[in-house]
């Protein structure tokens, strides 16, 4: 080293080489040739500082937490609960506390990338311009080949419920008429049921749970999926309320109850009807309410007396008669008494009907419109935004599906159509329908806020559907199962990197989501992607897309508000939300005026609308799906504690906290199958199979095995390999399509 410089003189390297080297390096990074100025640097402008921002958790969750994001010199350093949010009260959940770890994860999608060929794992980074050019050209090409943009399909749902994310729908609408996945896999049967009964999909203020004296959590595992609600349940208990949990699984919520009923899965309607029969027999029903506010009471009473007995209910539900009596009397003699209906219990072929039967109890006891009473399911009353980001017009002269048409085109073209509309496919039978579509077929698929490859039924068929496409684009945060099957992945911002506004389908609070940090890497929000793609489309073919080509996200938040919302939330200007979240000013008991939205204006035990849609007019019992002989075990795959669908579980912090999925098996079943705790178990049926480590426990019933859905990092684990796309009984009216009977999933198991 000492004679370094002497030897350097004689170094066999010429100035030319060095100049060339400098130039090559420069070319590769826009370094200006050999000059010393670092091209990617400038002079400092900002001072280092610590700021905090109001954000809102946009995940598909009851609680939709208000958050405070603390940012140091542009880096997200901590995320905590917003103490001014009245429902979540300054607390997050196990998932929420991983947000820094998640947002700063080196595993995130960073740049637009292309996979050649699809599924090869052979990825290459491309610029946004390249990506958008490929996409725009494909759209224009399809439009040219098929005369419309119907071959372009969008599958988007609940990965992010921020209102500005409806920009994705707006983006496609502004290119013409397109094909999109219609429906929701989540809660539709219950929504229709609520709608048949009450006429409007709305529920009481969940904070009034604290006022009830008797609470039935019916298929509701709030301890895992609505954790902040537990505080109101606790308050009710402290004031002497009795809490009952009805669930096939002995959940963490069930462990909080005074009484737990382990019901046979999907027989909830029978239990409700049994209770109803006992209530009527014992004259505990509210005749005044029934006469004044209920349609179809005589018919329903007749049905109860004719068809329903406690013995039948007991036999059907697996709950002893005295148990049903205790439940019925507790519910009918305590006032106010409330029922909270979970979403898992309606993911069945008789799910909607079961919800109607449970609702009937609230009508029977005349507790609808009573604070701390009624039957709660969910609402959308606080969602009255402008959906400005979504409501865009197709370019003039765009062709689509003739008005009145539907996915099958059965009714299409009955009379010479003058107008056109979009084409829908059933989100809950997406794989099959997307492949079945003809004239025009679907050739391009855009996935946003969704991970169908791990969340849709029949995962194998989803792969086939993807394979039948000319181009698949996935916009997401991580390379999840769906993104792995894409041609192009687009990196999207987390809610800390973009503006938005969020409300809940459960509580009544609204939170602004301020942009806390700059988008990391080359991530763009769905709205920014819409602007950019529109720009590209118009560049390639002027007028081919009506979507604005640029804008200011914060201002676009403002564009979502209207007088109605301001009035509802008692604010005069949306920027007030930066000071604190706002709460919708509605009566705690939403039906206090007993004016129902049904055709009759009454609560409808007898619904012509239901009859018209080929359903039983009354909440009569529809038998649950029985296990086929060759697959005698019910396989339940409910929502997880450590993630939300396929989100969160892949993050380092979560992988350490919950490293692998387990299959919960009752000791009796395990013994019969020769399975010991920790064994690897093969769970299979005709559709597919998965292998899981066994956990022997009595929290599950003997005829059922349970694991919890999730996407684990570097894992192929997928709970939907054995799930068939069997429709639930309701959902079409309010959400466009019936739900999925996710929990009518039957398998056999063996030691692997």
């Amino acid at each position: 080293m000492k004679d370094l410089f002497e030897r350097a003189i004689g170094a066999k390297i010429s100035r030319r080489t060095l100049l060339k080297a400098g130039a090559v390096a420069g070319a590769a990074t826009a370094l200006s040739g050999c000059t010393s100025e670092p091209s990617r640097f400038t002079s400092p402008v900002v001072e280092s500082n610590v700021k905090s921002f109001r954000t809102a958790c946009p995940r598909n969750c009851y609680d939709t937490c208000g958050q405070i994001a603390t940012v140091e010199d542009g880096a997200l350093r901590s995320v905590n609960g917003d103490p001014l949010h009245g429902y979540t009260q300054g607390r997050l959940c196990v998932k929420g506390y991983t947000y820094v770890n998640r947002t700063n994860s080196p595993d995130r999608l960073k740049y637009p990338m292309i996979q050649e060929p699809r599924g090869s794992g052979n990825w290459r980074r491309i610029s946004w311009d390249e990506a958008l050019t490929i996409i725009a050209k494909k759209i224009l090409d399809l439009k040219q080949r098929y005369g419309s943009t119907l071959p372009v399909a969008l599958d988007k749902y609940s990965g992010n419920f921020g209102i500005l994310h409806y920009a994705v729908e707006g983006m496609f609408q502004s290119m013409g008429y397109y094909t999109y996945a219609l429906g929701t896999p989540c809660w539709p049967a219950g929504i229709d049921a609520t709608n048949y009964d009450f006429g409007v999909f709305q529920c009481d203020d969940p904070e009034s749970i604290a006022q009830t004296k008797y609470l039935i959590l019916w298929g509701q595992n709030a301890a895992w999926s609505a954790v902040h609600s537990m505080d109101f349940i606790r308050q009710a208990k402290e004031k002497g309320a009795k809490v009952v949990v009805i669930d096939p699984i002995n959940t963490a919520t069930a462990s909080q109850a005074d009484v737990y009923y382990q019901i046979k899965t999907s027989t909830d309607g029978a239990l409700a009807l049994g209770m109803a029969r006992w209530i009527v027999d014992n004259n505990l029903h509210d005749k005044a309410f029934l006469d004044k506010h209920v349609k179809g009471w005589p018919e329903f009473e007749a049905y109860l007396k004719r068809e329903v007995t406690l013995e039948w209910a007991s036999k059907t539900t697996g709950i002893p008669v005295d148990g049903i009596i205790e439940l019925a009397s507790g519910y009918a003699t305590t006032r106010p008494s409330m029922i909270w209906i979970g979403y898992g219990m309606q993911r069945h072929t008789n799910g909607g009907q079961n919800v109607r039967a449970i609702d009937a109890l609230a009508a029977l006891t005349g507790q609808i419109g009573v604070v701390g009473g009624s039957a709660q399911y969910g609402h959308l009353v606080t969602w009255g935004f402008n959906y400005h980001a979504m409501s865009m017009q197709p370019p003039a002269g765009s062709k689509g599906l003739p008005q009145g048409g539907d996915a099958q085109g059965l009714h299409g073209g009955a009379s010479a159509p003058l107008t056109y509309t979009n084409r829908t496919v059933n989100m809950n039978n997406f794989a099959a329908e997307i492949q079945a579509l003809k004239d025009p077929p679907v050739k391009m698929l855009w996935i946003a806020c969704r991970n169908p490859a791990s969340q849709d039924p029949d995962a194998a068929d989803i792969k086939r559907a993807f394979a039948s496409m000319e181009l698949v684009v996935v916009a997401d945060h991580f390379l999840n199962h769906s993104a792995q099957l894409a041609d192009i992945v687009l990196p999207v911002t987390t809610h800390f990197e973009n503006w938005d506004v969020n409300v809940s389908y459960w509580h009544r609070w609204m939170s602004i989501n301020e942009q806390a940090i700059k988008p990391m890497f080359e991530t763009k929000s769905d709205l920014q992607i819409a602007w950019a793609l529109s720009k590209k489309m118009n560049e390639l073919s002027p007028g081919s897309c009506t979507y604005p080509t640029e804008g200011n996200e914060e201002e676009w938040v403002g564009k979502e508000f209207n007088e109605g919302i301001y009035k509802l939330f008692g604010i005069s200007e949306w920027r007030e939300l930066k000071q604190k979240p706002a709460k919708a000013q509605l009566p705690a008991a939403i039906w206090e005026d007993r004016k129902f939205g049904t055709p009759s204006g009454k609560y409808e035990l007898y619904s012509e609308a239901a009859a018209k849609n080929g359903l039983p007019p009354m909440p009569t019992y529809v038998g649950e799906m029985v296990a086929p002989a060759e697959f005698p075990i019910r396989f339940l795959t409910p929502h997880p504690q450590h993630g939300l669908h396929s989100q969160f579980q892949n993050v380092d912090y979560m992988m350490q906290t919950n490293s692998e999925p387990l299959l919960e098996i009752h000791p009796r079943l395990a013994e019969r199958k020769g399975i010991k705790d920790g064994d690897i178990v093969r769970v299979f049926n005709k559709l597919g199979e998965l292998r899981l480590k066994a956990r022997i426990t009595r929290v599950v019933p003997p005829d059922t095995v349970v694991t919890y859905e999730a996407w684990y990092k570097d894992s192929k684990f997928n709970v939907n390999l054995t799930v068939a796309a069997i429709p639930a009984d309701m959902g079409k009216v309010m959400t466009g399509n019936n739900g999925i009977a996710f929990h009518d999933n039957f398998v056999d198991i063996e030691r692997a």
Partner: protein
Amino acid sequence: MPTKQLGFHHNIDLCIGCKACQMACKNEYELEADVNWRRVYPVRENPAAPERNFISVACNHCENPECKRVCPVGAYSKREDGIVVQDHGKCIGCRLCTMACPYGAARYSPKHRKASKCELCKDRLDAGQTTACVAACPQSALKLVEMGKLNDPRAVVSVPGFPDSDITHPNIRFTPPVSSRQFRRDS
């Protein structure tokens, strides 16, 4: 002798095992993924009434801290308010405290090659806030208490599934779970 003694009260009857406390702690102190100062673990299943009950445990700032007794470099000390603190600078990573703590509160960090543990958010307390874990509990099942001033008639020193408290006299009290009545399909 400390003038007062801070500790935890964990109401198992209210705890839903949501792990918000465990993760809030990691979030607050940006811990390594595989280091937990607080852990939530399931109580062994009661065959009579299988329930999901949990214990949430961190450092119990014991009367007789084993970590303090065994530490060869005298890194551990007990503050006036009873908080057991560790002088991280002194630690040489012998791991004896991680073996000696009956609750595994002291964790060895492969990255820092030292042990560390919960210090009851002493800086937050000094700033007039409560601990990160207590602030996060959606059930108010975990509380910060001044020992001796805890007024819960049901509070007990130990519960099944919790290590022998005679070893160090941990400053944690529990409210045991009340089993729900169960109508089960396997009974």
